[in-house]
């Protein structure tokens, strides 16, 4: 932590003779709006933030180091626990990296199952974001409405892979389970339900004048800053950069589907809010198409050697998680365990811009900005 922040400045007004002093405020690690164990040391003058320093690492479990002593299959459950709001994308990025190294062929049906799982998870993740963001802004209701709908997705996952959050669903070369009987129909029903339900979300929140006044023009940054800070996902797209790995570097089978990448230009919380809501719509669009095209039968796991030993060398793959660009770097020495594993976690990278955004803002705005970045602490600290 930067020690400079600890010195606070005091001055006595020559006119009134009143002595004023800056104050250090510890936001977190047990603050209700930091979405986990995230600590933010802010120096405030009244309610105006002069300086903010994020302190991370309270949830650090050393996943990357642990992975060096685990076989590739064993690492998959660990990835569930990084971005626990969207574990399917994490599963996928690891499997994708290993599959790329080994040049494995993934069966068609498994590809579709993976894609459906990932897109459902994206919707679930954005719903969590929507609910918690509104909760941060003081509205309690949206949280429960969002969680009601997310619950439906989790129930679908529970049927698919037997867990609600830590899925451990994907395997190198495919997926663990085929879709159970009637599952595809249930997903179809859910997509139809969600499309019907989304307008009511807008009815409840999007037009609310108080809400709009809370987020308009808050946490603004421009395109150059976004690129300089290596932001990704909605944080980047809100400044007008059209960059979505599903479109620009299609992985899995995303190139078969027709969907838009919503972008905004203002780069403030309002833009990010609308983009995330729009992404739910696009995800539902992808899901609809995928469910139509879903192959009627086939294998769900390809031909995979019993012991997974990627050839010596290194690889880096990246995919679009709900939070941004999640990457996985594997350096292999031809053994069954990685020599080095590294995850590029979008939450962590996106969080780096926070001190810059917070300068000169008030405490209320701080909460809105932090919420709009959409971090998951399991992923920040990894």
């Amino acid at each position, binding site marked *: 932590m930067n020690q400079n922040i600890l010195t606070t400045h005091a001055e006595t007004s020559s006119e009134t003779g009143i002595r004023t002093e800056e104050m250090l405020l510890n936001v977190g690690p047990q603050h209700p709006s930091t979405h986990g164990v995230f600590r933010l040391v802010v120096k405030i003058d009244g309610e105006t933030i002069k300086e903010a320093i994020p302190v991370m690492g309270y949830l650090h479990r050393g996943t990357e180091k642990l992975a060096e002593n685990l076989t590739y*299959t*064993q690492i*998959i459950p660990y990835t*569930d626990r990084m971005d626990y709001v969207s574990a399917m994308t994490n599963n996928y990025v690891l499997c994708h990296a290993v599959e790329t190294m080994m040049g494995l062929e993934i069966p068609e049906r498994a590809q579709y199952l993976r894609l459906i799982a990932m897109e459902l998870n994206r919707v679930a993740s954005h719903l969590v974001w929507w609910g918690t963001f509104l909760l941060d802004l003081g509205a309690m209701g949206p949280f429960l409405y969002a969680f*009601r709908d997310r619950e439906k997705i989790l129930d679908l996952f529970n049927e698919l892979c*037997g867990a609600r959050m830590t899925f*451990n669903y994907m395997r190198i070369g495919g997926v*663990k389970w085929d879709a159970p009987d009637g599952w595809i129909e249930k997903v179809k029903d859910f997509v139809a339900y969600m499309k019907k339900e989304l307008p009511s979300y807008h009815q*409840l929140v999007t037009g609310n004048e108080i*809400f709009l006044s809370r987020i308009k023009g808050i946490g603004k940054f421009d395109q150059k800053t976004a690129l300089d800070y290596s932001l990704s996902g909605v944080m980047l797209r809100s400044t007008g950069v059209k960059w979505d790995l599903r479109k620009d570097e299609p992985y899995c089978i995303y190139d078969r589907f027709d969907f838009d990448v919503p972008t905004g230009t203002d780069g403030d919380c309002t833009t990010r809010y609308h983009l995330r809501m729009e992404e739910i719509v696009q995800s539902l669009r992808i899901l609809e198409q995928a469910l139509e095209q879903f192959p009627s039968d086939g294998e769900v796991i390809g031909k995979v050697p019993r012991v997974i030993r990627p050839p010596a060398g290194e690889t880096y793959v990246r995919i679009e998680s709900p939070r941004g660009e999640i990457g996985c770097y594997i350096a292999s020495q031809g053994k069954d365990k990685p020599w080095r594993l590294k995850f590029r976690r979008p939450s962590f990278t996106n969080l780096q811009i926070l001190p810059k955004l917070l300068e000169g803002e008030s405490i209320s705005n701080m909460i809105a900005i932090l919420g709009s970045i959409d971090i998951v602490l399991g992923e920040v600290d990894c």
Partner: protein
Amino acid sequence: MLGLAKGLGYTFKKLTEKKVTHFYPDVPFPMPPRFRGIQHFSPEKCIVCNQCARVCPTECIQLTGKPHPDPEKKGKIIDTYDINFEICILCDLCTEVCPTEAIVMTNNFELAAYSRDELYKDLKWLDDNNTNVREEN
């Protein structure tokens, strides 16, 4: 003001809508067939191949075997089998590798206990945990 009114209208409509609360502790919560709960272990099926202990990502399974009491037969039989549910993450890998389906998942998931010691489940406990056993493993 229109936005506020719309929001108020929405919440008012919800007032009479069907509630989604589960009556969980009063009414058992049914889990889908694939649900990964606490493992069931049947000692008679176990061939002490040690695969489950090796595949476990958190190393929470500990087992020992002993020679088969019948000297005619080869191989070993299981002597002790402990799962430490303090660190077990119910990832399903042990049941996936087990060649004889000696260790399988059940739909039971209630693990809360007052003492950590109670979370060490031994062979007998896991053997008795034989309700709601999962079909496909």
